């Protein structure tokens, strides 16, 4: 209503068309809300009765009409007027009485969305025809700046992570969240090798995580091997699983490849679920030994015969937190190892070949690169890091079951990589903080946090489809140095 009156005299030709479009939207809304909102069955003492709620229907239809009108007018260029009107409308909605709270939330949300659209449109109109290209360039420059910053900030963050367990606020829950975040960061960095660098969409990464976890759990259960002997073995076995899957699968391209990896992830889970005699099936494996202090000392109050207790060895009071802190440092070292390895291998011929394969496979063949071998290397290396993470997961939990390795896990890890920006190491960290950290921090919002998470993902994919911090620095420079880099960026932007 407000938007309409503000623009009434503005243009004779736009307004009728806008009103017509809004009216059509309102009719659709009426058709939908009349049965869904307008009629409600209530279980009363007289039996099932129908209660009508036409007031709500009227409000909903009016909201749809106004909202559609606002969107159309923004599209037609009346952004300033609509921005003012929508802010005014938001204030009115805040104060006005609504029959039910959800309606108020929807009305406020709608006014907010329209205000944002109008503001974006205003900015675009001011800055000339700033299209998607210009926005991408700006985002890329931002990502470049962040990456340059991480050169200085990175070590500081690592120092902070090292000092975290001894901070005054670091209780058991903080360190637990830290372990969780680092596990996902490690998995994200591991998956980044195959998805981000080699450009192969792997939807079944959790399979290698599972292979690593079960490798350790089964070796410990059947042979009583220690964690430190099993950790490298878990990586090797996961890498072997990657090779075995890779040989038949890497001939496939694009979507077909993704589908087969998805299937492989499910195959591993279902085998674990059904091979009851060996893996314990849905009951999982419990009592997986906790890690000791490099085979020297135990993290128990009363160590077993012939073992030393960690707290006795260092003359400390016994504290169950010591084991948690040790686990925290273990995953920190593992995650940093993946990062160091990835940053290093990116600059080697094999890393360059991965990125070249992502860009153009046919050109790679013409340059003498054996695609299958290079892809297999990416696949098995990525799987190996997943296996390490899996062994860590098993020893931290002490209990694993196939339920921990569902497709949802793969999807979350993939979301971290894609959201952060494929091939961006910092992006993985930031995305993990968003994807894992935020829902963890807002646990009291219960199921609404998943809704908010989904909406956030959609918004980011609309706003920046290539990921938050996607920016690629060349692995080798002919004209090195900071000034040269600045000059190049400026010249490229002009071209």
């Amino acid at each position, binding site marked *: 209503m407000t938007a309409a009156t503000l623009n009434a005299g503005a243009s004779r030709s736009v307004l009728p068309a806008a009103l017509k479009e809004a009216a059509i939207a309102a009719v659709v809304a009426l058709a939908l809300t009349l049965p869904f909102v307008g009629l409600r069955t209530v279980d009363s003492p007289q039996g099932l009765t129908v209660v009508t709620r036409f007031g709500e229907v009227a409000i909903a239809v009016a909201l749809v009409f106004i909202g559609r009108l606002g969107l159309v007018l923004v599209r037609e260029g009346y952004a300033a007027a609509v921005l003012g009107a929508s802010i005014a409308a938001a204030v009115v909605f805040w104060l006005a009485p609504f029959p039910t709270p959800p309606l108020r939330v929807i009305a406020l949300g709608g006014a907010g969305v329209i205000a944002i659209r109008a503001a974006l449109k205003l900015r675009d109109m001011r800055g000339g025809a700033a299209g998607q290209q210009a926005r991408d360039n700006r985002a890329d420059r931002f990502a470049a700046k962040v990456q340059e910053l991480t050169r200085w900030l990175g070590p500081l963050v690592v120092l902070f992570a090292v000092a975290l367990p001894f901070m005054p606020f670091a209780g058991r829950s903080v360190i637990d969240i830290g372990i969780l975040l680092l596990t996902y960061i490690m998995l994200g960095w591991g998956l980044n090798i195959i998805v981000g660098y080699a450009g192969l969409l792997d939807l079944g990464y959790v399979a290698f995580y599972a292979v690593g976890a079960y490798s350790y759990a089964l070796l410990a259960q059947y042979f009583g091997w220690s964690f430190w002997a099993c950790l490298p073995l878990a990586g090797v076995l996961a890498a072997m699983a990657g090779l075995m899957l890779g040989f038949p699968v890497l001939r496939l391209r694009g979507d077909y490849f993704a589908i087969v990896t998805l299937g492989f992830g499910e195959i591993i889970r279902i085998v674990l679920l059904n091979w009851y005699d060996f893996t314990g099936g849905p009951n999982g494996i419990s009592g997986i030994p906790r890690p000791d202090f490099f085979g020297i000392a135990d993290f128990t109050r009363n160590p077993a015969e012939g073992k030393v207790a960690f707290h006795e060895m260092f003359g400390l009071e016994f504290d169950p937190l010591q084991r948690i802190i040790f686990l925290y440092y273990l995953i920190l070292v593992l995650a940093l190892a993946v990062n160091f*390895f990835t940053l290093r291998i990116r600059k080697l*011929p094999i890393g360059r070949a991965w*990125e070249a394969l992502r*860009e153009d496979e*046919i*050109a790679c063949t*013409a340059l003498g690169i054996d695609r299958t071998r290079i892809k297999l290397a990416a696949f098995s290396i990525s799987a190996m890091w997943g296996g390490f993470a899996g062994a860590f997961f098993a020893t931290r939990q002490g209990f694993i079951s196939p339920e921990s390795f569902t497709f949802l896990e793969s999807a979350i890890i993939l979301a971290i990589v894609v959201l952060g920006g494929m091939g961006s190491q910092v992006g993985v960290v930031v995305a993990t903080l968003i994807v894992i950290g935020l829902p963890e921090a807002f646990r009291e919002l219960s199921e609404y946090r998943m809704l908010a998470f989904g909406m956030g993902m959609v918004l980011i994919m609309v706003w920046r489809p290539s990921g938050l911090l996607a920016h690629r620095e060349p692995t080798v420079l002919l004209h090195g140095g900071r000034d040269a880099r600045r000059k190049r960026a400026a010249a490229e932007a002009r071209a």
Partner: protein
Amino acid sequence: MTALDTAAATAAPVLLKVEHLCMRFGGLLAVNDVSFTAKAGQITAVIGPNGAGKTTVFNCITGFYRPSAGRLSFRGDDGTVHLLERLPGYRIAGIGVARTFQNIRLFPRMSVLENLMVAQHRPLMRASAFSVAGLLGLPSYRKAEREGVELARHWLERTGLVDVADWEAGNLPYGAQRRLEIARAMCTRPQLLCLDEPAAGLNPRESAELADLLRSIRDGEGIGVLLIEHDMSVVMTISDHVVVLDYGRKIAEGSPEAVRSDAAVIKAYLGEDEDDPLPPEVAADLGVRVDGEGA
């Protein structure tokens, strides 16, 4: 056998011998019994109207297609003869056959220098001991990488791309992308450089520069160049030997002058109806006088 005659006449060693090459796609015979040779230190051009089968021949030589029949023998720099039709595609680049593509195939999001480093994948991979030496940062690998960068710098200088070495390849202007593709092919240290329409989309000045570059590659490196080209001004000025295809068959072969005045070639390019007047630019390229009677 004119091919054998010219081979005997000039002492240049034969690099590539194509014998009775056939390529069949379903019912279509795209290449029908084509034979020719390419020699070291010479530019051999393959020309023909659209759909004549030039790119198919190329794809057979560079391993992208497996020929239906025929033999492709290539003499490597150590004198061993490889049968290209039996090798997988990636091995063909390894023995010294490099190619470029009709529609440019760079790695657009990688830098210009990185494009050239990827081209040296095989030697660098060996130097990095399959990444072990590279991961450890051993001096042997560092030295190999420095040499790789120097080779890349050499070709960037030859193609005039030094200033943009650190740009994303996809941001280069079109002509520079064409030159970069040639530089990248040269970084594989080939014996035979196969170029699929390198002058397509270039303006006359860029075409002239390209001709100079190809001549300098032929004379400076002593390697063979095999060229598919539509731009007759380029073909006629730089080729030592021209092979003409039409409907998958070889219809003529010889020096540019001989091919230019060959009746079959003129017919293939201009059609059989001799009443049609020649378009003046085509006539000029072919060196034919327009006198109303075609040839």
